[in-house]
């Protein structure tokens, strides 16, 4: 097998690469834009993207070209593109690197997307905490404007594309596309009911495409090197291209690793990330950000592509791979994640809002050694009544840590409860009215 050639991280791993416009152009930057602008009809670009098999890198993995195709044809009036740079999934930090180290790559991607779908105004919704990222993007956009890549009549063509950076205010939920749009409109970021989808009723009720940073960053390469080239990488036909995996946790070399899709977890953890930190055995893996159900060492052979991970009972999600070694308290780990979700529940839907607080209460009780025998049943019941009962996918995500730890490490929960029963005094029962 020939050595794998990185696509997205290639520029920034070149020694001396600063991410400036000059550096980017030196490496062939903005050639894709020059290639298509006014020369290739927009519809053809959408076709190319469809053919390349590019799927969304934000979490859901929806085919990008198909998403573009949902915009109403011949729509009169403004349409929008939003780049979702609100990377806030615990354990995920790939977009941050793409933004900070090679901003022009994603800007060119956005320009190509705008051209393909006929958008004149695009927004980068960037996570509030990414102060440096926002500064870098602003600087890069200023450079691009000066060079005539962004603004009125770009590169002298009739196309005008303006890109604006909008900083979020620190809510996890604003990474959900409709909450992102609400927030961008200046409202509290609450997810909208779908349908209608953003493709028809998006920003200010106008047709809108929301794409992840990594998705957009792939576009210049697809245009430059062709759909067939891209489609052949990774594990075609369903999962083409590369993914940047963010490996964190108990490994020797945490960081971002761009590998072709279909690479096994074993290879990612033991070759790229250098193996376990203190050479203890591996205990648990979250394969796709905090919302993805846990994997066990048995799953090391799972190929990291959309289908294989889903088949094994988790999801590829945002590419955040968190590794935990033997000795980790899984109940505590699940509680920690649950606390995050409780804190970030936007509060719109009752099952999630009240359910998450209830789950945290119950989990904390168990971890603190005050657990009751009925608590495990309560946890399951609560989880079952959150998943699928909420407006957005947050509800499904937040129960993943508990449901999967209960599946693989139920004995840890039981031990904690048992210890509690032996050591703690009999608890005062709350009054219960009528028949229970």
């Amino acid at each position, binding site marked *: 097998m020939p050595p794998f050639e990185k696509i997205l991280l290639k520029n920034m791993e070149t020694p001396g690469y600063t991410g400036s416009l000059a550096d980017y152009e030196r490496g062939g930057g903005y050639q894709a834009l020059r290639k298509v602008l006014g020369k290739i009809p927009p519809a053809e670009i959408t076709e190319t993207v469809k053919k390349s098999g590019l799927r969304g890198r934000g979490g859901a993995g929806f085919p990008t070209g198909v998403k573009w195709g949902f915009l109403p044809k011949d729509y009169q009036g403004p349409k929008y593109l939003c780049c979702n740079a609100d990377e806030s999934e615990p354990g995920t930090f790939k977009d941050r690197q793409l933004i900070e180290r090679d901003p022009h790559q994603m800007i060119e991607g956005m320009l190509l997307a705008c051209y393909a779908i006929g958008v004149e105004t695009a927004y980068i919704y960037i996570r509030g905490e990414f102060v440096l990222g926002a500064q870098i993007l602003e600087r890069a956009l200023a450079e691009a404007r000066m060079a005539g890549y962004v603004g009125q009549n770009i590169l002298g063509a009739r196309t005008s594309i303006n890109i604006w950076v909008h900083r979020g205010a620190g809510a996890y939920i604003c990474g959900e596309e409709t909450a992102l749009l609400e927030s961008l409109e200046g409202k509290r970021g609450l997810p909208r009911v779908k*349908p209608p989808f953003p493709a*028809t009723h998006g920003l200010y009720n106008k047709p809108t495409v929301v794409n992840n940073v990594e998705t957009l960053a792939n576009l210049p390469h697809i245009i430059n090197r062709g759909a067939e080239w891209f489609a052949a990488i990774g594990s075609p036909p369903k999962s083409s291209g590369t993914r940047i995996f963010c490996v964190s946790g108990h490994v020797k070399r945490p960081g971002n690793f761009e590998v072709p899709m279909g690479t096994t977890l074993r290879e990612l953890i033991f070759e790229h990330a250098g193996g376990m930190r203190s050479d203890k055995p591996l205990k648990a893996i979250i394969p796709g950000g905090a919302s993805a159900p846990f994997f066990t060492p048995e799953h090391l052979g799972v190929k990291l592509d959309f289908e294989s991970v889903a088949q094994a009972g988790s999801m590829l999600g945002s590419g955040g791979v968190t590794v935990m070694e033997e000795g980790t308290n899984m109940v505590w780990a699940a509680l920690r994640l649950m606390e995050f979700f409780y804190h970030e529940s936007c509060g*719109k839907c*009752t*099952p999630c809002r009240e359910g998450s*607080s*209830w789950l945290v209460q119950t989990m904390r009780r168990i971890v603190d050694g005050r657990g009751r025998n009925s608590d495990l049943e309560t946890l399951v019941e609560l989880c079952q*009544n959150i998943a699928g*009962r909420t407006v957005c996918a947050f509800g499904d995500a937040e129960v993943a840590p508990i449901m999967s730890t209960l599946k693989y490490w139920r004995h840890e929960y039981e031990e904690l409860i048992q210890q509690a029963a032996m050591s703690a005094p009999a608890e005062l029962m709350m009054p219960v009215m009528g028949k229970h």
Partner: protein
Amino acid sequence: MGLKPATNPEVEAKPIELTIDGRSVSASDGVSLYDVISSTGKIVPAMCYHYTFDPFGSCGMCLVMVEGKKAPVRSCTAKAAAGMIVRTEGDDLFQARKKAVEKHLSVHPLDCPVCDADGHCELQDMAFQHQVTNLANAKQKLIPEDTRSLVLDFNMNRCIACGECINVCKDVLMIDALQFMKKGGFNQVVAKGDQPLSCEFCGDCLAVCPVGAITNKFSKYLYKPWQLKKTTTTCNYCGDGCQMHVETKDREVVRVTSPLSWKNKWGDRSETAKGHGGICVRGRFGFEYIDSTARLQQPLMRRDGKLVEAPWLEAVHSVVDRLADIKAKHGPDAIAGLITARCTNEELYLFQKLMRVAIGTNQLDSSARYGHINFVRAAQQAVGVGRAMNDWEDLTKAKAILLVGSNLTETNPLTSVRVKDAIRIYKAQVIVVDSAQTNIARLASHPMMVKPGSEGVFVQGLVKSVIEQDLIDTEATAKYPKAFAVLQEAVAKLSFESITAATGIALDQIHEAASIFAEAPRAIILCAEGVVRRPAGYEKILSLMDLAWITGKLGRPGCGVTTVTEEINEQGAVDMGAAPEFLPGQAPITDAAARDRFAKAWGAELPAPEKGATLTEILKRCRNGQIKALYIVGENPLATLPKSMDVQAALKGLDLLVCQDLFLTETARFAHVVLPACSYAEKEGTFTNLEGKVLRIRQAMDPVGESLPDWHIMTAIASGLGCQLDYESPHDIQREIMKLLPGYYNLGQPRKPAPDPNKYLSNGYSAEVKARYQPQMEAMAATQAAKPFALALGQLLYHSGKLSTQAPGLITIAPNTGRLHMNAKDMERLGLTDGTKVRVTTAQGKLDVGVQADLAMLPGSCFFPEHFNEPPVKDLMAVEIDRHTGVPYFKFTSATIQKV
């Protein structure tokens, strides 16, 4: 958000079949599954759902099983699709819903014993229905109550965050005053930006709150819902005539509630085109005048120059004797009468019968004379139908609405919700022609901020533009080629330069407005106080009729020329003949056949038509001694008309002034006899609203003190004058009206009149159209140069006439600031700040008054609410009397303003 096909008249929804609990049901493709289920009569519990807005999908209660899906789905956000097999019942669903209720209960304090909603609470109902018996998770959130708002208290401990209040405010009312905010770890509803609530205070949020989280400041802790007697009746403030529930305990009105409530959350969204069931701030919080201590308890008679209490028998005898005496000495035309349009149809009918038959005079008028009569007369003249041509549904479903001279949100709040619906759901283009930045102008697609007083010129511009841009409906104009030729000729004399100069609107904007209106398939003109109560109102309405005619909008379904009324029964007052020019049914008093008919029915001779007198003529005849006795029912001309009308002199010269009212008004202080009347909550009857719907009012409580319903008093007086009437209740009067005006009572359905311009366009049109299109811009420019400020009197959202100033709730929200509202830039230019005194000088005199900045004011204009006479800004107004209709115009004048 996305339109439901069912509410979009542009989209033919595909009919589909699906199965619900084994029954085949037909529905429209793509509508909410929940709506389809509830349309079959099945009720699936849902706590965040209300049919008036888009599904919010947050409560997790409305779960159903759809075949092919493993887990239950939320039916409100699911779309109905062909062939769906749905199950709404079953133990699994019951348990799942129970879990959802438990979650709602887990953040509720269970302080039911002290909660206003106890017994009227969806959370209680749901907990009971789902047998939630484990209350161990109830939580005290210990959030301090937010009492900063003037009318509502927010107890967020009880809030279940269903979002109904936020959604109704945002989606239905387009006010958007509320939001969620995470405070102290809990999701709470707060006013925008966590400021004290400052909004239209319609209270619809209170109505849809399923628990006791939002409470009414005026009735908090005063009742348990089951102790209240609930009477469905019609609001008596503005012409909208909203249905509402007056809830009373003994002799006290505790609260007023609306048909819109979480209790009736199931309905057909498209039906909201006829009204969403909400009421406005006046209806909901302006009820306290009913049991006010200021109400008259006993008749009063003047003895030794003082008004003292007297028994009814004595008071009525005195009135009757003195009326009979004056009639005998000076003839029937020494007596005149005025009545308020807040009386019922029955009372208005009886009033004119009393005046015309028992007394024998045609000197009678109602408060419709202040403006609405202009519309009635113009519409009668042009199309033979003396009332608004469109109902709320037409307005909601219009594609273009031309709103001329109307601060609709403030004068008729619920009609404005229809316009908002037209904007929001039906994507109507709304052209607002006004000289203030009103709420509706801000929502409109085409706000045309004309120079003060130039609405009429703008309308002429539209007519000219339609003709010159060739936007005419040739079918409509071809029928009357002569009339059209005259109009063309008249319009040709006007120049666009002078029109744009006078209105301050660019020509292309006039052209755009004209083409939007002309090209819309359903287009409505709505004119209001800025037209009917300002000089040449009658003629301006006729010009609007011209516009409707040449664009083919007369007689076409969903199109027309419409108005709104300020008092509830202005339309009824005209319909009942409480005007010198009309017999009941708007039959002209000069019409021999009609006179015969009524004379026969009443068994009496009718007074000669030419001796009739309108309001201002009556006052003039009082002043010159022709009229000796004046009978005033609920009217208050002294407080309403400017000083220059010299009402006081007119009243002082009378031998007998009888005032029949709820309160001792300014006018009543001059009376010889004051008779205490009942409010609308203490009597039965009907009102006719601006749509022409006849709406019932029902007695909610016993009369206050010894007050009596107006019809009762009038029957007694008529009988005393020898005109024996044997009405025992308003129903007897109703029966008589039904006989005389068949079809008038029509079970609350608006009657669709068929406008027919034939008579008008074939006859007198040519003669008068020339006069109407005279250029008047020079005169306007001259006044503007001499007196650069336009001073207008008008209504506030929180008040209606003078009546609402007796309601402490409304005074709390909008007290009399005594200040002139001005544009902030003007204030800056003149070196004024809030509260600075200025001297306002008009042709009628000058007055020193404080000023306040008002965002709605455009530069060069200022405003004072007509509800208040302190300071007496109204006395600065000149009165101009319409030569056609006798309407006194005194709401608008030019003034100079200087810093004192």
